[in-house]
């Protein structure tokens, strides 16, 4: 590993994209993720890539649609209200089976909401964002290093399964600074050489490729969707990732993702010091949701606590994943308010964690 740098989460996301061979970035500024665009506007020209500030989020995601169709690795980034604007484009990209990476650094909503961190877009992101029967891969890092690593992984998964992949962060992760290291490999911009489906010019040497999401014959459309769901089944089988801490003997397992997982872990560490048998479970992939890992983690638990920066969204997936086999409670702050470890600890105690 190379020497460590101190980087903002947003900067680490941007640098990681370059290093993953992302040749084109299309974006539009919005707090709290604008550093991604600012950083790439400086770096992209130096490594032979393209930085383009579009006239809107809608334009940016449709540029991604076109670029992805040519087989080049490309990315856009935004924050909650901007992701809503991109939702139509994301649906088209999924419907055309194209790989791309989308970064969402969540802020408070609904509407313009606020600029402080939030996780209130869990439903939106993990349920595909736009219209239609489809899924997108969602990775939820919780450190700056992991944010960088997630971008690489998102590009790889997107290419492997030919679908959009999202790195889901929040304003706190985007703005905070931590040491991060990248490997020393030279930056190599991606091309379409391993993508026989790419619409990048057939040169009269092969049949032309078509990028399309329109199927007017119902049985034909049904078949494309059913085929896609077979891929989703593979993803759900092979690509789940989660981290468990002290779950083996835990009576209360606290489930949280992203920056909230670090607050929850901090509360669980303190609970352990006070002799309370608490455990921490962190889904790293939100789609596919780590159902088996969660069931294993709560095997010996009496209760489950879900903590989010929202009014409670992932809590539904937790209940479904464990088939309501244990009582599941929720604690959250929303609108940009960050739950304090002390508040989480108080909730653990209220749930009988100090019996």
């Amino acid at each position: 590993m190379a020497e460590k740098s101190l980087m903002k989460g947003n900067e680490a996301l941007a640098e990681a994209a370059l290093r993953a061979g992302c040749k084109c970035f299309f974006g539009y500024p919005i707090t709290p993720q604008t550093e991604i665009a600012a950083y790439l506007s400086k770096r992209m020209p130096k490594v032979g890539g393209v930085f383009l500030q579009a006239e809107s989020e809608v334009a940016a995601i449709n540029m991604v649609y076109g670029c992805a169709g040519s087989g080049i690795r490309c990315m856009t980034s935004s924050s909650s209200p901007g992701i809503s604007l991109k939702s139509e484009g994301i649906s088209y990209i999924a419907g055309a089976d194209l790989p791309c990476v989308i970064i969402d650094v969540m802020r408070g909503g609904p509407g313009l909401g606020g600029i402080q961190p939030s996780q209130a877009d869990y439903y939106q992101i993990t349920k595909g964002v736009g219209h239609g029967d489809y899924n997108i891969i969602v990775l939820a890092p919780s450190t700056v290093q992991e944010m960088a690593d997630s971008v690489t992984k998102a590009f790889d998964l997107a290419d492997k399964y030919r679908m959009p992949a999202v790195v889901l962060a929040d304003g706190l992760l985007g703005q905070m600074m931590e040491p991060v290291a990248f490997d020393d490999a030279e930056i190599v911009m991606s091309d379409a050489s391993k993508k026989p489906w790419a619409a990048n010019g057939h040169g009269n040497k092969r049949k032309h490729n078509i990028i399309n999401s329109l199927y007017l014959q119902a049985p034909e459309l049904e078949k494309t969707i059913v085929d896609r769901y077979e891929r989703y089944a593979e993803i759900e089988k092979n690509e789940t990732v989660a981290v468990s801490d002290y779950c083996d003997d835990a009576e209360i397992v606290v489930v949280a993702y992203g920056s909230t997982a670090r607050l929850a872990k901090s509360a669980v560490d303190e609970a352990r010091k006070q002799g309370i048998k608490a455990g921490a479970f962190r889904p790293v992939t939100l789609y596919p949701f780590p159902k088996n890992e969660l069931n294993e983690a709560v095997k010996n638990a009496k209760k489950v606590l879900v903590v989010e920066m929202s009014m409670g969204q992932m809590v539904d997936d937790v209940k479904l994943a464990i088939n309501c086999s244990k009582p599941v409670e929720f604690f959250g702050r929303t609108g940009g308010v960050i739950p304090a470890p002390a508040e989480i600890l108080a909730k653990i105690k209220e749930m009988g964690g100090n019996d």
Partner: protein
Amino acid sequence: MRDIRKLTIITGHYGSGKTNFSVNLALDTAAAGNRCTIIDLDIVNPYFRTADFRDMFGEKNIELLSPVYANTNLDIPSLNIPLQSILESGNNVIIDVGGDDEGAKALGRFAPTIREFPDTDMLYVINKYRYLTKEAEEAVQIMREIEYSCGLMHTGIVNNSSLGTETTSQTVKDSLAYADKVSELSGLPLRATCAVEGAMPDNAPEPYVIKRYVRTLWENQ
């Protein structure tokens, strides 16, 4: 830190640790018995700002002035800071400027007032471990861009090199030659080498032991 002037302006690259340095300086200035005003002039950064320490400043009788921006209903900052009258009040004044030349634009508005004020320091905070200022030449270039943007010249360098929570005395030690080079290239004196307690190398010039006030909630336990 030695020889603190009546007006200290703190600039630097994004994430160099300007705000943490400013907070330390304000608390030390107040602890030395001076009336102190800290001005948060950061119009760039929405999070981890001087204004986050409003309550702590209140307890220490430090006056805080900040643009109407983050934590309010404004998405665009508005600056309503009567610098002239604050300087005339006789308080020690610390101005925490936003990152890079963009952040320094807000300072430019006050340049005529600042040029007239005799007892001024403008300190450039550097961090060897920040991605875009790892080379002394890069750090000096950003310093010049800040000066060009605000129309004011720096008077000193503050070496605030750190890797956040992973900082050790070796981390700081490895930055001393870098700080010397920035000082040499810019022709400005090194005014402080910052480190948290336990991480200050023995041979550090102008050592200034600081505390980490800018931190995440999970570190506060």
